[in-house]
Protein backbone atom coordinates (compact mmCIF):
# COMPACT_ATOMS: atom_id res chain seq x y z
CA UNK A 1 0.00 0.00 0.00
CA UNK A 2 2.66 2.40 1.15
CA UNK A 3 4.89 1.42 -1.72
CA UNK A 4 2.32 1.98 -4.45
CA UNK A 5 1.47 5.36 -2.84
CA UNK A 6 5.11 6.35 -3.13
CA UNK A 7 5.17 5.27 -6.75
CA UNK A 8 2.15 7.45 -7.54
CA UNK A 9 3.76 10.39 -5.75
CA UNK A 10 6.94 9.85 -7.69
CA UNK A 11 5.07 9.80 -10.99
CA UNK A 12 3.22 13.00 -10.07
CA UNK A 13 6.51 14.71 -9.24
CA UNK A 14 8.23 13.53 -12.42
CA UNK A 15 5.27 14.64 -14.51
CA UNK A 16 5.53 18.07 -12.97
CA UNK A 17 9.23 18.20 -13.77
CA UNK A 18 8.59 17.23 -17.40
CA UNK A 19 5.81 19.81 -17.66
CA UNK A 20 8.14 22.46 -16.21
CA UNK A 21 10.89 21.74 -18.74
CA UNK A 22 8.31 21.57 -21.55
CA UNK A 23 6.97 25.04 -20.63
CA UNK A 24 10.54 26.29 -20.60
CA UNK A 25 11.26 24.74 -23.99
CA UNK A 26 8.23 26.16 -25.78
CA UNK A 27 8.95 29.61 -24.33
CA UNK A 28 6.30 29.89 -21.62
CA UNK A 29 8.75 31.44 -19.17
CA UNK A 30 10.09 33.80 -21.78
CA UNK A 31 6.60 35.23 -22.32
CA UNK A 32 5.86 35.26 -18.61
CA UNK A 33 9.08 36.97 -17.53
CA UNK A 34 9.53 38.92 -20.77
CA UNK A 35 12.94 37.44 -21.49
CA UNK A 36 14.64 36.77 -24.77
CA UNK A 37 16.10 33.32 -25.52
CA UNK A 38 19.64 34.72 -25.33
CA UNK A 39 18.96 35.74 -21.71
CA UNK A 40 17.39 32.46 -20.67
CA UNK A 41 18.59 29.66 -22.96
CA UNK A 42 16.25 26.82 -23.88
CA UNK A 43 16.80 23.39 -22.27
CA UNK A 44 17.80 21.87 -25.62
CA UNK A 45 20.47 24.57 -26.04
CA UNK A 46 21.78 23.86 -22.54
CA UNK A 47 21.90 20.14 -23.24
CA UNK A 48 23.64 20.86 -26.53
CA UNK A 49 26.23 23.09 -24.86
CA UNK A 50 26.82 20.44 -22.21
CA UNK A 51 27.23 17.78 -24.87
CA UNK A 52 29.64 19.66 -27.08
CA UNK A 53 31.79 20.94 -24.18
CA UNK A 54 31.56 17.79 -22.14
CA UNK A 55 35.31 17.32 -21.60
CA UNK A 56 35.96 20.87 -20.42
CA UNK A 57 32.95 20.82 -18.14
CA UNK A 58 34.01 17.50 -16.64
CA UNK A 59 37.56 18.69 -16.05
CA UNK A 60 36.43 21.78 -14.18
CA UNK A 61 33.81 19.83 -12.29
CA UNK A 62 36.49 17.43 -11.12
CA UNK A 63 38.61 20.35 -9.95
CA UNK A 64 35.76 21.84 -7.93
CA UNK A 65 34.70 18.47 -6.55
CA UNK A 66 38.26 17.87 -5.35
CA UNK A 67 38.29 21.15 -3.46
CA UNK A 68 34.86 20.52 -1.99
CA UNK A 69 35.58 16.94 -0.92
CA UNK A 70 38.95 17.64 0.69
CA UNK A 71 37.57 20.73 2.41
CA UNK A 72 34.47 18.95 3.68
CA UNK A 73 36.62 16.08 4.95
CA UNK A 74 39.04 18.36 6.83
CA UNK A 75 36.33 20.66 8.13
CA UNK A 76 34.13 17.82 9.32
CA UNK A 77 37.00 16.20 11.19
CA UNK A 78 37.95 19.48 12.85
CA UNK A 79 34.34 20.20 13.73
CA UNK A 80 33.90 16.73 15.13
CA UNK A 81 37.00 17.05 17.28
CA UNK A 82 35.83 20.42 18.51
CA UNK A 83 32.46 18.94 19.47
CA UNK A 84 34.17 16.07 21.33
CA UNK A 85 36.36 18.45 23.29
CA UNK A 86 33.32 20.57 24.04
CA UNK A 87 31.42 17.56 25.34
CA UNK A 88 34.37 16.50 27.50
CA UNK A 89 34.96 19.99 28.91
CA UNK A 90 31.45 21.45 28.77
CA UNK A 91 32.20 24.42 30.96
CA UNK A 92 34.61 26.08 28.56
CA UNK A 93 33.50 24.33 25.43
CA UNK A 94 29.96 25.62 25.26
CA UNK A 95 31.27 29.18 25.24
CA UNK A 96 33.44 28.27 22.28
CA UNK A 97 30.40 26.77 20.62
CA UNK A 98 28.61 30.12 20.91
CA UNK A 99 31.46 31.65 18.94
CA UNK A 100 31.27 28.86 16.39
CA UNK A 101 27.56 29.54 15.91
CA UNK A 102 28.34 33.20 15.39
CA UNK A 103 31.09 32.33 12.93
CA UNK A 104 28.63 30.20 11.00
CA UNK A 105 26.68 33.35 10.17
CA UNK A 106 29.71 35.06 8.60
CA UNK A 107 29.26 35.42 4.84
CA UNK A 108 31.55 32.82 3.30
CA UNK A 109 32.54 34.86 0.29
CA UNK A 110 34.08 37.50 2.53
CA UNK A 111 36.62 34.88 3.60
CA UNK A 112 37.59 33.90 0.06
CA UNK A 113 39.95 36.85 -0.59
CA UNK A 114 41.63 36.38 2.81
CA UNK A 115 42.30 32.73 2.17
CA UNK A 116 43.57 33.72 -1.23
CA UNK A 117 46.16 35.98 0.42
CA UNK A 118 47.22 33.10 2.62
CA UNK A 119 47.31 30.20 0.23
CA UNK A 120 47.58 31.69 -3.23
CA UNK A 121 45.41 31.25 -6.28
CA UNK A 122 45.55 27.45 -6.36
CA UNK A 123 43.34 24.78 -4.97
CA UNK A 124 44.42 25.16 -1.36
CA UNK A 125 42.81 28.55 -0.77
CA UNK A 126 39.41 27.17 -1.80
CA UNK A 127 39.94 24.10 0.31
CA UNK A 128 40.62 26.41 3.25
CA UNK A 129 37.32 28.28 2.72
CA UNK A 130 35.38 25.02 2.45
CA UNK A 131 37.10 23.71 5.58
CA UNK A 132 36.19 26.80 7.57
CA UNK A 133 32.54 26.62 6.67
CA UNK A 134 32.05 22.89 7.09
CA UNK A 135 33.46 23.06 10.62
CA UNK A 136 30.56 24.86 12.27
CA UNK A 137 27.63 22.67 11.14
CA UNK A 138 29.56 19.56 12.15
CA UNK A 139 30.57 20.99 15.54
CA UNK A 140 27.06 22.19 16.40
CA UNK A 141 25.28 19.03 15.29
CA UNK A 142 27.74 16.61 16.82
CA UNK A 143 27.67 18.49 20.10
CA UNK A 144 23.90 18.12 20.19
CA UNK A 145 24.23 14.42 19.48
CA UNK A 146 26.81 13.97 22.22
CA UNK A 147 24.83 15.85 24.87
CA UNK A 148 21.11 15.45 24.13
CA UNK A 149 20.66 11.89 25.32
CA UNK A 150 17.52 9.82 25.58
CA UNK A 151 15.85 10.17 28.99
CA UNK A 152 17.26 7.90 31.67
CA UNK A 153 20.09 6.46 29.57
CA UNK A 154 22.62 8.50 31.50
CA UNK A 155 20.95 7.57 34.81
CA UNK A 156 21.09 3.93 33.85
CA UNK A 157 24.81 4.03 33.11
CA UNK A 158 25.41 6.02 36.27
CA UNK A 159 23.59 3.37 38.25
CA UNK A 160 26.07 0.85 36.82
CA UNK A 161 28.81 3.09 38.18
CA UNK A 162 30.12 3.51 34.64
CA UNK A 163 33.04 5.92 34.45
CA UNK A 164 33.12 8.95 32.17
CA UNK A 165 35.13 7.19 29.50
CA UNK A 166 32.67 4.32 29.22
CA UNK A 167 29.73 6.71 29.10
CA UNK A 168 31.43 8.64 26.33
CA UNK A 169 32.33 5.61 24.25
CA UNK A 170 29.22 3.52 24.80
CA UNK A 171 26.51 6.14 25.08
CA UNK A 172 27.46 9.56 23.79
CA UNK A 173 29.44 8.57 20.73
CA UNK A 174 26.87 6.15 19.28
CA UNK A 175 24.14 8.63 20.12
CA UNK A 176 25.83 11.26 17.96
CA UNK A 177 26.01 9.17 14.77
CA UNK A 178 22.68 10.38 13.30
CA UNK A 179 23.67 13.98 13.98
CA UNK A 180 27.08 13.52 12.38
CA UNK A 181 25.42 12.20 9.24
CA UNK A 182 22.95 15.08 9.19
CA UNK A 183 25.86 17.50 9.47
CA UNK A 184 27.63 15.72 6.61
CA UNK A 185 24.56 16.19 4.43
CA UNK A 186 24.47 19.89 5.26
CA UNK A 187 28.19 20.10 4.55
CA UNK A 188 27.97 18.59 1.07
CA UNK A 189 25.84 21.54 -0.04
CA UNK A 190 27.73 24.16 1.93
CA UNK A 191 31.08 22.81 0.78
CA UNK A 192 30.14 22.84 -2.88
CA UNK A 193 28.71 26.32 -2.53
CA UNK A 194 31.80 27.62 -0.75
CA UNK A 195 34.09 26.09 -3.37
CA UNK A 196 32.17 27.53 -6.32
CA UNK A 197 31.69 30.96 -4.75
CA UNK A 198 35.37 31.35 -3.90
CA UNK A 199 36.24 30.39 -7.46
CA UNK A 200 34.23 33.33 -8.77
CA UNK A 201 36.91 35.75 -7.68
CA UNK A 202 40.19 34.01 -7.19
CA UNK A 203 40.82 31.11 -9.47
CA UNK A 204 41.88 29.96 -12.91
CA UNK A 205 39.98 26.69 -12.84
CA UNK A 206 36.79 25.18 -11.60
CA UNK A 207 33.05 25.54 -12.09
CA UNK A 208 32.88 28.97 -10.44
CA UNK A 209 35.67 30.47 -12.55
CA UNK A 210 34.35 29.02 -15.80
CA UNK A 211 30.82 30.07 -14.96
CA UNK A 212 31.69 33.71 -14.45
CA UNK A 213 34.00 33.69 -17.49
CA UNK A 214 31.58 32.19 -19.99
CA UNK A 215 28.82 34.51 -18.79
CA UNK A 216 31.05 37.49 -19.45
CA UNK A 217 31.43 36.14 -22.99
CA UNK A 218 27.63 35.85 -23.17
CA UNK A 219 27.73 32.09 -23.63
CA UNK A 220 24.60 31.67 -21.57
CA UNK A 221 23.87 28.06 -22.50
CA UNK A 222 27.34 26.97 -21.46
CA UNK A 223 26.88 28.84 -18.18
CA UNK A 224 23.70 26.92 -17.55
CA UNK A 225 25.50 23.72 -18.45
CA UNK A 226 27.93 24.44 -15.59
CA UNK A 227 24.96 25.04 -13.29
CA UNK A 228 23.58 21.66 -14.29
CA UNK A 229 26.96 20.06 -13.56
CA UNK A 230 27.12 21.74 -10.14
CA UNK A 231 23.59 20.66 -9.31
CA UNK A 232 24.36 17.06 -10.29
CA UNK A 233 27.48 17.12 -8.09
CA UNK A 234 25.41 18.34 -5.18
CA UNK A 235 22.77 15.66 -5.69
CA UNK A 236 25.46 13.00 -6.06
CA UNK A 237 27.25 13.88 -2.82
CA UNK A 238 24.01 14.23 -0.92
CA UNK A 239 22.85 10.91 -2.32
CA UNK A 240 26.03 9.13 -1.23
CA UNK A 241 25.70 10.43 2.33
CA UNK A 242 22.02 9.48 2.38
CA UNK A 243 22.92 5.98 1.27
CA UNK A 244 25.53 5.69 4.02
CA UNK A 245 22.95 6.99 6.44
CA UNK A 246 20.44 4.41 5.30
CA UNK A 247 22.81 1.53 5.93
CA UNK A 248 24.47 2.93 9.04
CA UNK A 249 21.25 3.82 10.81
CA UNK A 250 19.19 0.73 10.25
CA UNK A 251 18.95 0.42 14.01
CA UNK A 252 17.75 3.98 14.42
CA UNK A 253 14.08 4.82 14.91
CA UNK A 254 14.04 7.48 12.22
CA UNK A 255 14.60 4.78 9.59
CA UNK A 256 11.95 2.36 10.78
Amino acid sequence: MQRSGNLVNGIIAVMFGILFIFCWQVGGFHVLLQLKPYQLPLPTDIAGALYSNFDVVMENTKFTMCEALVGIFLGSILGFMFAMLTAIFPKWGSGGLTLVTAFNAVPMIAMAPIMNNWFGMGMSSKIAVVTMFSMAPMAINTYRGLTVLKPFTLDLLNSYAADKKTIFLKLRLPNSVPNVLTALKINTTIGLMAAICSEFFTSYHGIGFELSTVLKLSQMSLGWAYIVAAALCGILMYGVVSLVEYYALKWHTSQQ
Partner: protein
Amino acid sequence: MEARRTKNIAALVWFVGLILAWECGAWVLQNVMHDSMHMQKLPYFHQVAGTFLVNFNSLLASAMVTLSRAFIGFILGAVVGVAVAIVMSLAKFVGKMLFPYLIISQMIPVLALAPIVYSIVKSQDAARIMLSAFITFFPVAVNMYSGLKSVDKDKIELVYSYTATKIDTYCKLMIPAALPHLFSGLKLSAPAAITAAILVEMLGTKEGIGIKILNSLYYGANGALIFWASVIMAALLGIFGYAVIAFIEKLVVHWEKGDREEGVS
Protein backbone atom coordinates in the same frame (compact mmCIF):
# COMPACT_ATOMS: atom_id res chain seq x y z
CA MET B 1 20.59 31.11 35.20
CA GLU B 2 23.94 30.32 36.76
CA ALA B 3 24.83 27.99 33.89
CA ARG B 4 23.96 30.72 31.44
CA ARG B 5 26.33 33.12 33.13
CA THR B 6 29.27 30.72 33.09
CA LYS B 7 28.54 30.06 29.44
CA ASN B 8 28.65 33.76 28.67
CA ILE B 9 31.86 34.19 30.61
CA ALA B 10 33.38 31.24 28.76
CA ALA B 11 32.37 32.77 25.43
CA LEU B 12 33.96 36.04 26.46
CA VAL B 13 37.17 34.28 27.46
CA TRP B 14 37.24 32.51 24.10
CA PHE B 15 36.68 35.80 22.33
CA VAL B 16 39.50 37.54 24.18
CA GLY B 17 41.72 34.52 23.65
CA LEU B 18 41.08 34.59 19.91
CA ILE B 19 41.99 38.27 19.73
CA LEU B 20 45.20 37.62 21.67
CA ALA B 21 46.01 34.75 19.32
CA TRP B 22 45.36 37.10 16.41
CA GLU B 23 47.77 39.70 17.80
CA CYS B 24 50.43 37.07 18.47
CA GLY B 25 49.94 35.59 15.02
CA ALA B 26 50.35 38.98 13.39
CA TRP B 27 53.46 39.65 15.44
CA VAL B 28 55.02 36.30 14.52
CA LEU B 29 54.21 36.83 10.86
CA GLN B 30 55.78 40.25 10.86
CA ASN B 31 58.78 39.88 13.14
CA VAL B 32 59.70 36.21 13.14
CA MET B 33 58.79 35.03 9.66
CA HIS B 34 59.35 38.43 8.01
CA ASP B 35 56.53 37.75 5.59
CA SER B 36 56.35 40.47 2.95
CA MET B 37 52.61 39.95 2.66
CA HIS B 38 51.96 40.23 6.38
CA MET B 39 49.65 43.20 5.97
CA GLN B 40 47.37 41.25 3.66
CA LYS B 41 47.67 37.95 5.46
CA LEU B 42 47.05 39.08 9.00
CA PRO B 43 47.43 42.69 10.11
CA TYR B 44 47.39 43.49 13.84
CA PHE B 45 43.92 43.34 15.32
CA HIS B 46 44.27 46.73 16.99
CA GLN B 47 45.13 48.31 13.64
CA VAL B 48 42.12 46.70 11.98
CA ALA B 49 39.89 47.73 14.87
CA GLY B 50 41.25 51.26 14.64
CA THR B 51 40.57 51.44 10.90
CA PHE B 52 37.15 49.99 11.54
CA LEU B 53 36.33 52.73 14.03
CA VAL B 54 37.81 55.56 11.97
CA ASN B 55 35.91 54.50 8.84
CA PHE B 56 32.86 53.37 10.74
CA ASN B 57 30.47 55.80 9.07
CA SER B 58 31.39 54.93 5.50
CA LEU B 59 31.46 51.21 6.34
CA LEU B 60 28.07 51.47 7.98
CA ALA B 61 26.66 53.33 4.99
CA SER B 62 27.84 50.55 2.65
CA ALA B 63 26.59 47.91 5.03
CA MET B 64 23.17 49.58 5.15
CA VAL B 65 22.94 49.49 1.36
CA THR B 66 23.67 45.76 1.44
CA LEU B 67 21.41 45.11 4.39
CA SER B 68 18.42 46.94 2.94
CA ARG B 69 18.56 44.96 -0.32
CA ALA B 70 19.10 41.71 1.53
CA PHE B 71 16.23 42.56 3.85
CA ILE B 72 13.76 43.22 1.03
CA GLY B 73 14.81 39.98 -0.63
CA PHE B 74 14.58 38.10 2.66
CA ILE B 75 11.03 39.31 3.35
CA LEU B 76 9.99 38.55 -0.21
CA GLY B 77 11.49 35.06 -0.14
CA ALA B 78 10.08 34.31 3.31
CA VAL B 79 6.54 35.41 2.42
CA VAL B 80 6.53 33.43 -0.82
CA GLY B 81 8.10 30.44 0.97
CA VAL B 82 5.44 30.42 3.71
CA ALA B 83 2.66 30.89 1.15
CA VAL B 84 3.92 28.02 -0.99
CA ALA B 85 4.23 25.79 2.07
CA ILE B 86 0.64 26.55 3.13
CA VAL B 87 -0.69 25.92 -0.37
CA MET B 88 1.28 22.66 -0.45
CA SER B 89 -0.26 21.50 2.79
CA LEU B 90 -3.79 22.66 1.82
CA ALA B 91 -3.75 21.04 -1.59
CA LYS B 92 -2.25 17.58 -1.15
CA PHE B 93 -1.71 17.27 -4.87
CA VAL B 94 0.48 20.36 -5.04
CA GLY B 95 2.37 19.12 -1.99
CA LYS B 96 3.16 15.79 -3.60
CA MET B 97 4.13 17.53 -6.79
CA LEU B 98 6.55 20.03 -5.31
CA PHE B 99 7.99 18.24 -2.29
CA PRO B 100 10.68 16.21 -4.10
CA TYR B 101 11.89 19.39 -5.75
CA LEU B 102 12.12 21.17 -2.43
CA ILE B 103 14.27 18.31 -1.14
CA ILE B 104 16.48 18.44 -4.23
CA SER B 105 16.80 22.22 -3.80
CA GLN B 106 18.67 21.54 -0.57
CA MET B 107 21.32 19.54 -2.38
CA ILE B 108 22.01 22.16 -5.03
CA PRO B 109 24.53 24.98 -4.60
CA VAL B 110 21.96 27.72 -5.15
CA LEU B 111 24.48 30.53 -4.64
CA ALA B 112 26.20 29.45 -7.85
CA LEU B 113 23.25 30.99 -9.68
CA ALA B 114 24.49 34.47 -8.73
CA PRO B 115 26.23 35.29 -12.05
CA ILE B 116 23.28 33.90 -14.00
CA VAL B 117 20.78 36.01 -12.08
CA TYR B 118 23.02 39.00 -12.52
CA SER B 119 23.26 38.52 -16.25
CA ILE B 120 19.51 38.04 -16.64
CA VAL B 121 18.47 40.96 -14.45
CA LYS B 122 20.80 43.75 -15.41
CA SER B 123 19.68 46.00 -12.55
CA GLN B 124 22.01 45.88 -9.54
CA ASP B 125 19.30 46.27 -6.96
CA ALA B 126 16.95 43.80 -8.57
CA ALA B 127 19.73 41.20 -8.84
CA ARG B 128 20.60 41.54 -5.15
CA ILE B 129 16.98 41.36 -4.08
CA MET B 130 16.18 38.45 -6.36
CA LEU B 131 19.09 36.29 -5.28
CA SER B 132 18.44 37.03 -1.59
CA ALA B 133 14.79 36.12 -2.06
CA PHE B 134 15.73 33.00 -3.97
CA ILE B 135 18.16 31.86 -1.27
CA THR B 136 15.60 32.57 1.46
CA PHE B 137 12.75 30.81 -0.27
CA PHE B 138 13.97 27.20 -0.12
CA PRO B 139 14.86 26.74 3.56
CA VAL B 140 11.72 28.64 4.60
CA ALA B 141 9.42 26.62 2.35
CA VAL B 142 10.98 23.29 3.36
CA ASN B 143 10.92 23.98 7.08
CA MET B 144 7.44 25.53 7.07
CA TYR B 145 6.07 22.59 5.12
CA SER B 146 7.64 20.03 7.41
CA GLY B 147 6.31 22.05 10.36
CA LEU B 148 2.79 21.93 8.96
CA LYS B 149 3.17 18.22 8.27
CA SER B 150 4.34 17.44 11.79
CA VAL B 151 1.26 18.81 13.58
CA ASP B 152 -0.29 16.12 15.77
CA LYS B 153 -3.02 14.14 14.00
CA ASP B 154 -5.06 14.08 17.24
CA LYS B 155 -5.05 17.84 17.46
CA ILE B 156 -6.21 18.18 13.85
CA GLU B 157 -9.00 15.68 14.52
CA LEU B 158 -9.99 17.52 17.68
CA VAL B 159 -10.24 20.83 15.86
CA TYR B 160 -12.10 19.06 13.06
CA SER B 161 -14.61 17.70 15.58
CA TYR B 162 -15.31 21.28 16.63
CA THR B 163 -16.29 21.84 12.97
CA ALA B 164 -13.64 24.56 12.72
CA THR B 165 -13.28 26.12 9.30
CA LYS B 166 -10.09 25.68 7.29
CA ILE B 167 -9.11 29.26 8.05
CA ASP B 168 -9.57 28.76 11.79
CA THR B 169 -7.69 25.49 11.71
CA TYR B 170 -4.75 27.17 10.03
CA CYS B 171 -4.75 30.38 12.03
CA LYS B 172 -5.22 28.78 15.43
CA LEU B 173 -3.56 25.39 15.15
CA MET B 174 -1.44 24.68 12.09
CA ILE B 175 0.51 27.90 11.67
CA PRO B 176 1.32 28.41 15.38
CA ALA B 177 2.42 24.79 15.60
CA ALA B 178 4.68 25.22 12.59
CA LEU B 179 6.28 28.42 13.90
CA PRO B 180 9.30 26.75 15.57
CA HIS B 181 10.12 25.01 12.30
CA LEU B 182 9.59 28.23 10.39
CA PHE B 183 12.08 29.99 12.61
CA SER B 184 14.67 27.26 12.06
CA GLY B 185 14.32 28.00 8.38
CA LEU B 186 14.45 31.75 8.88
CA LYS B 187 17.59 31.48 11.02
CA LEU B 188 19.28 29.53 8.26
CA SER B 189 18.26 31.92 5.53
CA ALA B 190 18.85 35.28 7.20
CA PRO B 191 22.67 35.09 7.01
CA ALA B 192 22.36 33.36 3.64
CA ALA B 193 20.33 36.25 2.24
CA ILE B 194 23.04 38.66 3.34
CA THR B 195 25.71 36.42 1.82
CA ALA B 196 23.77 36.40 -1.43
CA ALA B 197 23.54 40.20 -1.50
CA ILE B 198 27.28 40.53 -0.84
CA LEU B 199 28.07 37.95 -3.52
CA VAL B 200 26.10 39.86 -6.15
CA GLU B 201 27.87 43.03 -5.10
CA MET B 202 31.24 41.39 -5.56
CA LEU B 203 30.24 40.59 -9.12
CA GLY B 204 30.07 44.33 -9.72
CA THR B 205 27.78 46.99 -8.30
CA LYS B 206 28.34 50.63 -7.41
CA GLU B 207 27.77 50.54 -3.68
CA GLY B 208 27.60 48.08 -0.84
CA ILE B 209 29.95 46.25 1.48
CA GLY B 210 30.79 43.60 -1.11
CA ILE B 211 32.24 46.06 -3.56
CA LYS B 212 34.16 47.74 -0.72
CA ILE B 213 35.85 44.43 0.00
CA LEU B 214 36.68 43.91 -3.64
CA ASN B 215 37.93 47.44 -4.30
CA SER B 216 40.22 47.54 -1.28
CA LEU B 217 41.88 44.36 -2.58
CA TYR B 218 43.36 46.29 -5.48
CA TYR B 219 45.44 48.52 -3.24
CA GLY B 220 47.63 45.75 -1.82
CA ALA B 221 49.21 46.52 1.51
CA ASN B 222 47.74 50.03 1.60
CA GLY B 223 44.23 48.72 1.26
CA ALA B 224 44.77 45.79 3.59
CA LEU B 225 43.46 47.47 6.71
CA ILE B 226 40.31 48.80 5.10
CA PHE B 227 39.88 45.40 3.46
CA TRP B 228 39.97 43.63 6.80
CA ALA B 229 37.67 46.22 8.33
CA SER B 230 35.18 45.66 5.49
CA VAL B 231 35.36 41.90 5.97
CA ILE B 232 34.65 42.39 9.68
CA MET B 233 31.70 44.61 8.80
CA ALA B 234 30.39 41.91 6.46
CA ALA B 235 30.83 39.30 9.19
CA LEU B 236 28.97 41.49 11.68
CA LEU B 237 26.15 41.91 9.16
CA GLY B 238 25.70 38.15 8.91
CA ILE B 239 25.77 37.70 12.67
CA PHE B 240 23.34 40.60 13.04
CA GLY B 241 20.90 38.96 10.65
CA TYR B 242 21.00 35.73 12.62
CA ALA B 243 20.70 37.50 15.97
CA VAL B 244 17.65 39.51 14.92
CA ILE B 245 15.77 36.39 13.86
CA ALA B 246 16.83 34.55 17.02
CA PHE B 247 15.57 37.49 19.08
CA ILE B 248 12.21 37.59 17.30
CA GLU B 249 11.96 33.83 17.76
CA LYS B 250 12.36 34.25 21.53
CA LEU B 251 9.57 36.85 21.54
CA VAL B 252 7.17 34.88 19.36
CA VAL B 253 7.81 31.24 20.20
CA HIS B 254 8.00 31.57 23.97
CA TRP B 255 6.11 28.35 24.64
CA GLU B 256 8.73 26.15 23.02
CA LYS B 257 11.17 24.74 25.55
CA GLY B 258 14.00 22.29 25.54
CA ASP B 259 15.90 20.91 22.60
CA ARG B 260 14.39 20.71 19.22
CA GLU B 261 15.94 19.53 16.03
CA GLU B 262 17.34 22.33 13.96
CA GLY B 263 15.90 22.67 10.51
CA VAL B 264 17.35 20.78 7.64
CA SER B 265 19.45 22.25 4.85
